[in-house]
């Protein structure tokens, strides 16, 4: 299955690791980490529990295995190569995953494709952008063979960046992390990964991290925290715009201005019973708007093997690229690192036009085209192109 495509990708990825090997930083505490990888022909199987001794071995690991994806644990272990229960966990970096797909922007229906796995036919169409036609109009295959694939989208990236900025702000201002302890990366597909190496957080377990994630997402808030109570609420106890932490952010989002704040609060305290219910709604609404959309499962995990920085993501052929300046970062040029000099011939099918590596592509109607290798790889990774 897809042998030629796999061969093509494998050689391109290999070339990347060969050319870039000296630019890929060796993770710190190398010997205490667990590594893992997947292969192009390995039907997704994860090879893990790998321990790497030194920089030389690290280079050999990346160049020798021709991996489709490479992972490195956020955890530190005494014996990374042993089974989980015997690894002797020593701590873990705090990690965050912000994914544009969780933000559910309206633009998604325009750039999320249903791609038929066997025949590479792609289609948009359903207004909610979630599901596609019941059968493939290329091969008549069933819906179960359809995969959702998202094309590059600037508004989605802008929204994800906003989440990153909010997260960094909370980490630094509320939680006492210093900016130098945070490393931000483009995930290589549709979002951002943050690695936080803050010593005090290293020992936190799953449950503590879950509470931390709830804080960041503004989940589990009770009205009393923002100043509302059922019995004789105190006007002076309400969150105010100038305050720090969530109280300040909430006041800005829920009240808007000083004058509006005063009038809303007067209304609330007049009838505390109804006010309490109303306030709860205001809170839920604010939480949805200003809570940071992280994937809590990732942040809770102390044993995750997480995509390694500077490696390639086989969902797109793009790099998990560092973003020292998130605002200025353009993933669709900065993370495009595969060969742009050579060309490849592919049969592509894509109803929308998209930009990548400074060029525009598509739309294609099941046609054979000559493309720069990086773009061919992108489309093959996404599943709507095959080798001609």
């Amino acid at each position: 299955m897809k042998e030629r495509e796999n061969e093509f990708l494998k050689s391109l990825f290999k070339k990347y690791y060969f050319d870039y090997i000296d630019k890929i930083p060796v993770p710190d505490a190398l010997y205490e980490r667990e590594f893992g990888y997947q292969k192009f022909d390995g039907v997704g199987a994860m090879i893990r529990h790998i321990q790497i001794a030194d920089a030389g071995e690290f280079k050999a690991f990346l160049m020798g295995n021709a991996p489709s994806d490479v992972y490195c644990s956020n955890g530190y272990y005494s014996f990374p190569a042993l089974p989980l229960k015997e690894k002797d966990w020593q701590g873990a970096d705090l990690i965050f995953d912000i994914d544009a797909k969780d933000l559910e922007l309206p633009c998604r229906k325009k750039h999320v494709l249903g791609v038929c796995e066997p025949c590479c036919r792609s289609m948009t169409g359903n207004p909610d952008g979630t599901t596609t036609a019941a059968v493939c109009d290329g091969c008549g295959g069933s819906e179960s063979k359809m995969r959702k694939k998202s094309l590059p989208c600037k508004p989605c990236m802008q929204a994800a960046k906003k989440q990153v900025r909010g997260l960094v702000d909370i980490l630094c201002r509320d939680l006492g992390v210093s900016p130098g302890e945070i490393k931000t990366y483009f995930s290589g597909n549709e979002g951002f990964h943050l690695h936080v190496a803050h010593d005090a957080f290293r020992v936190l377990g799953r449950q503590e991290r879950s509470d931390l994630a709830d804080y960041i997402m503004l989940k589990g808030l009770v009205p009393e925290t923002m100043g509302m109570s059922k019995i004789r609420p105190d006007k002076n106890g309400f969150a105010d715009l100038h305050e720090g932490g969530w109280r300040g952010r909430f006041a800005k989002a829920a009240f808007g201005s000083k004058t509006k704040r005063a009038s809303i609060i007067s209304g609330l305290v007049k009838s505390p019973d109804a006010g309490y219910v109303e306030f709860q709604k205001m809170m839920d609404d604010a939480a949805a708007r200003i809570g940071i959309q992280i994937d809590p499962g990732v942040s809770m995990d102390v044993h995750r093997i997480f995509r390694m920085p500077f490696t390639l993501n086989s969902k797109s052929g793009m790099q998990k690229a560092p973003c020292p300046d998130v605002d200025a970062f353009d993933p669709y040029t900065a993370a495009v690192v595969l060969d742009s000099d050579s060309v490849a011939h592919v049969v592509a099918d894509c109803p929308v036009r998209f930009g990548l590596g400074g060029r525009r592509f598509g739309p294609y109607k099941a046609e054979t085209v000559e493309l720069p290798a990086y773009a061919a790889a992108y489309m093959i990774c996404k599943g709507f192109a095959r080798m001609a």
Partner: protein
Amino acid sequence: MVDTLLPTPEWRSCNGPVSGRGPFIYAGCQSCIMLHVGKDEKAKYPFLPEAGKFLQDQGFSLAEFGTDPVLKVIVDKAYERIMAATRGSVYRSALVGGKATGDHTLNMEIFSFLIAIVLIKLANHNTLVQRFALNESRRAEAFLTGDLSDTQDRSRSDMARRIIHDVSGTQVVQSNHRYLIPVADYLIHSKSFHEREWKLVNREVDGGYIILKPDKAVRLVRHTLVTYITSRINKSPVPEMIPGFEVMVAQLVAEAERLTPKYVVTGVNPPCVEHAIKVLEGGENLPHSGRFMLATFLLSRGKPIAEIAPLFRNAPDYNERITMYQLKHLAGEKTGTKYMCPSCNKLRIQGLCFATEECDGITNPLQFGRRRMAAGDVAAQEAAGR
């Protein structure tokens, strides 16, 4: 606003005395001025190492307590101190507002604690250790709160902060009338609390610190006091039987036997159940929903009520009659309607779920372990070539 509140870096890492801000005690810190542990402090916190040598310092030997009729008062008080703990009522201290009325009272407070430990060591029963540590920690909690919030006498709040640091490893930073706990410490200590107010999101968080009132700050670390006192008792050597103590020790053993839950934790309980048992054992408050889960789970597993009831004994609001009544009700003995153990989903929403990988794929705690067993069976069959 934040910056003026927080300690300067030197202060935090305590690299040297910073004018007007000391004394600031840090474990192993050379430049910190040692606080003097006076008799008042020894009476309030008799588990401190400084109080440990009090008997010898005052020129008493243990044997004298067994025979001397004058010292008998102290032994009786020590016995009462333990019995109060077994009843779950906090030992009524003779200290008024954290101060003793006279030297005699102070001596009594310290002696009775130390002799109580001797009695407990002689009785050699874990239930006594647990109960005693729990109650003494509640007693100390009250004093610590008072000391920590003393804004007149800085040495008292410094002492409280030192004790908290020694016992829990947590450095409480005091800034005006605010008490700051580092985020990571807060998360670790608040883990076993279920009330929503303890969730991080419902706290004031600023610059890496949680801002708490003194009572909450002490409440946060109380469980470490229990651990601390327990380990102090466990670590102290078992003395030879002291002539004159035999009867009291026998009575303590009998009381401990009566109180010991016969229920044996099997180890195949799901994490939520194990957690609930641990919370109760530590004398922490388990919310109603948690008690409901624990009781219905054990009832469904076929545990008799008589074995379940003792689990709740350490709860702060324990009442034997009410507990028995409620258990019978849940078991359906009253109405014929048996209550089911709540689903994992429900427990997750209630904050009672502590899922591990072994919980994968189950929807009710009662299924825990069964799936694993089933998968094991399949593997075994496959191995057998079937």
